[in-house]
């Protein structure tokens, strides 16, 4: 049975090297913890640098001011961001751009994509309190009002809202799911409540749409909604898998460092097989995770093959990162039980990603339906 292939592009490898060096330099763990504590949760000068480096332009077509590459070349950036736990609006802005490319009108693309390509943030508001991963399972609505629409309903997990200039939101329009672009200045401060996430490196808001109005031109191409949902779903899972895989690598490195340092009974605890062997198992799972990730990066966009590869990558990344971090807590002994031990950061990150766009069980169920 053939589930696809793996390869790489030169541009992808260039991005991998650049991103690795950038993230290592800009995101030491002490800084991660500091940014977690308050405020925007990200370093605005770092975010600006990412924009200046053209990272937001990677997967935007040239005609809209982008570099004209694809999600294939975004994956290594997301992986390294995850490896160094560097929080920023990068994934939100990338996914928002992808939503526009898959579901926007020509005018909307021409208007917004060049700005995003230059480093202006945008985000998505797709999820609702029902916790569903099916993007069409929504209740928020847009009702005709004057020349535009009046919105109602509540959105959750609106990531990086403070940074964003636009919020691409899913609503029912004429009873069918549609995407609309809400300019951030159309959202009153009182409508947005910051959510308390298990992953404290990230920022998200719950947004009450009631009373927010949008112009008719804010409605994206209603004929492309399903295509856009499918594209966003796959892109979000691909980047989630990338971030998770990068975090998993650091988690294992962190555990190994401890096993090579801590002594008990006169020996380094890494010499005890009860610790060594599960750490190796975590490392094996991580290597599989990385292989499936780059296979998914390679097949993104390929009909059929891409979906299978991405679902496998996300499922494996969830499993690997969760196990590695769970064992990391355990193998740090008493210290592992404290807030100061970084293992908790990795465990919380994995719980977050499992909750978004589908966990391992969800994707394996989809894979069963595709493959059996």
């Amino acid at each position, binding site marked *: 049975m053939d589930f696809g292939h793996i390869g790489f592009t030169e541009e992808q490898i260039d991005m991998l090297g650049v991103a690795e060096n950038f993230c290592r330099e800009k995101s030491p763990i002490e800084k991660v913890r500091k940014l977690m504590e308050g405020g925007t949760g990200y370093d605005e000068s770092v975010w600006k640098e990412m924009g200046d480096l053209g990272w937001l332009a990677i997967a935007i077509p040239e005609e809209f001011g982008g570099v004209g590459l694809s999600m294939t070349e975004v994956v290594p950036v997301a992986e390294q961001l995850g490896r160094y736990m560097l929080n920023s609006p990068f994934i939100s802005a990338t996914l928002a751009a992808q939503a526009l490319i898959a579901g926007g009108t020509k005018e909307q693309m021409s208007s917004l994509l060049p700005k995003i390509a230059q480093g202006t943030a945008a985000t998505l508001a797709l999820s609702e309190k029902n916790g569903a991963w099916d993007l069409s399972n929504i209740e928020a609505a847009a009702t005709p009002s004057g020349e535009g629409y009046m919105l109602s309903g509540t959105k959750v997990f609106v990531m990086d809202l403070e940074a964003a200039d636009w919020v691409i939101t899913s609503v029912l329009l004429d009873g069918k799911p549609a995407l609309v672009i809400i300019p951030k200045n159309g959202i009153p401060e009182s409508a947005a409540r910051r959510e308390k996430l298990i992953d404290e490196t990230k920022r998200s808001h719950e947004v009450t749409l009631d009373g927010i109005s949008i112009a008719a031109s804010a409605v994206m191409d209603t004929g492309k909604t399903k295509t856009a949902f499918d594209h966003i779903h796959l892109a979000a899972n691909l980047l989630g898998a990338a971030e998770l895989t990068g975090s998993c690598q650091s988690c294992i490195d962190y555990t190994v460092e401890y096993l090579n340092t801590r002594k008990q009974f006169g020996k380094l605890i890494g010499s005890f097989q009860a610790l060594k062997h599960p750490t190796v198992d975590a*490392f094996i799972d991580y*290597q599989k995770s990385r292989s499936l990730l780059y296979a998914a990066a390679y097949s993104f966009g390929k009909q059929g093959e891409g979906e299978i590869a991405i679902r496998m990558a996300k499922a494996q990344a969830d499993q690997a990162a969760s196990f590695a971090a769970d064992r990391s807590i355990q193998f740090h002994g008493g210290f592992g039980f404290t807030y100061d031990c970084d293992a908790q950061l990795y465990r919380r990150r994995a719980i977050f990603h499992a909750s978004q766009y589908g966990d391992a069980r969800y994707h394996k169920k989809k894979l069963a339906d595709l493959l059996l």
Partner: protein
Amino acid sequence: MTASVEDFAKEADAWFAENTPKNLDFMLPLTFMEVGTDQQFDFLRDWQRKVYEAGYLGAAWPVEYGGGGLTQAHQDAATAAMKKYNAPIMFNTIGLGWAGPLILDIGTEEMKHKYIKGILSADDVWCQGFSEPENGSDLGNAQLRAVRDGDEYVLNGSKIWTTHGHYAKYMILLARTDPNAPNKYAGLSFILTPMTVPGIETVKIRKLTGEHGFTQTFFTDARIPADGLMGREGDGWKVAMQTLMYERNAKGGQAGGISITEIDPLEIMTLAREATIDGQPVLDDPVIREKLVDFMMESHAFKMNAARAKLPPLNQDCPQAIPLMSKIIHTEYTRKINEFALSLQGSRAAYYVGEDNAVDDGYWHRGYLNAFSATIGGGTSQIQRNIIGEHALGLPKTR
């Protein structure tokens, strides 16, 4: 004039299409490790000889020693044809894959002229004398004694799990020549050993499947020529490690052919599509569906690992990791998927090879039990975790 690889491949394809034996009335072993009956042995020896004489084995080995003098690409094409037509295995694996490449690499001219052709023609069956009853995982502590006496070595001790021991003419032997060396590894030597001299006795051991295929070998004052020594006394561990590299396909140069019938365990899908448990199709069961997806993901991840290992830009952080974990992943997967297949058979799982009502003639039972030869042999999965932990992650050795 040397045929081009394309032409050679076409000829090989046609030859195996026509000559691959079909519809045998007896069971062939799945791997070279289960050659247990004389009928199996005679058949496989004749088959290997036929393939060699047709030019499709050892094609890349030097002509002057009995090889075909062609390129690895030629041999790979012939091997591909064997796979395509599910040809019976090339059973003389220890010669074809381990001793042969070793001799071609570091052997003397005399050794090459003496041993290579017999390996290819299957006139000389080879076995391996590494593990001992008291020293398996701790191979470096091997105790079988080789004492130099003039131009001979005198051997005393025992080796075990000797595949083909019963049929072999030669053994690649790891023996202790110096019990007083500064460390245990430094006292070992590697000696090409004739099995037919007085003082060497093999006793068949029955496997948990009920089949035969390996022996315990006893050495009692057995005298062998000292010119079988490879390298110098004390080089044994280094040479043995090189042999393991061939065994793990980490080094090239093997003669070709397949020694293990590679049935994709995803053949389980055929079973899964037809199986019912308690009257319900197993594919209706969400738990079974998820488990089957797990196996498909595992299989695909293994393939993607192998492919990524060949793409250095995607494998920078720890380039040796994937090769080091290849054995444990593949062998444990094989064990688990064969075991899972038994769980899809309902009460018919109680039937074994030889019973008409057995599912797939007991294939999955054999597959599962035989899978342990790979999770235990060649370095147990537990030892593999030690190796990966120490060599890939830099964790301290367990003392």
